């Protein structure tokens, strides 16, 4: 859009979304950690719980 000195065109073959992979990898780790915490500590630690 804006004419910038650094502007270039990246075609399909030339672009690997490594930055996206890094971000989504971080997100993955956050999700796993938050899930384990929320399930095993917040939930199972919030007893008594319905068992029947």
């Amino acid at each position: 859009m804006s004419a910038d000195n650094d502007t270039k065109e990246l075609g399909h073959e030339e672009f690997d979304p490594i930055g996206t992979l890094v971000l989504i990898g971080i997100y993955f780790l956050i999700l796993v950690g938050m899930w384990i915490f929320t399930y095993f500590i917040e939930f199972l630690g919030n007893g008594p719980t319905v068992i029947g």
Partner: protein
Amino acid sequence: MNIHTYEKIWLIGALALIVGFIATVTYGAAGAGVAMVDASGGTIDANAVTDDEDFGEPRVEQVGENEYDVYVIAQQFIFRPDTIVVPANSTVTFHVTSIDVIHGFQVVGTNVNTMVVPGQVAEITVEFDEPKEYGILCNEYCGQGHHDMEGKLNVVPEDEYGGESE
């Protein structure tokens, strides 16, 4: 179809998360023994609850050595009994129904939480180990006085329990 390698990696990661979530919940059910509210409480004629042999008199009743049944009626805007007393080290089955609209029955600070639907009996079994005083609140909007709807659940030391229900 052309999927970039990185997105394939993420697809596998996403599916692993999904399977992991399902597996955790399954562990909770099969391993930790958490059971869902279901249809085992049966249905009831919501217009004739007071004639029912169990709900006619909402109360705590001992049914085994450390086993208790509690019959609870939820209505606009109270629980009956409004104070439930059970001893520690007991297994308590709550039977909860409504005579008017949908309510919620939640023992605050615990996972004891169920919907209360007129015409249905919510049956949930819980083990109480330690003595403690809990609040009960209605967490499903039930009308103008919904925010005033509360009760108590007192788990008393065994030697203090005298069979009283309110």
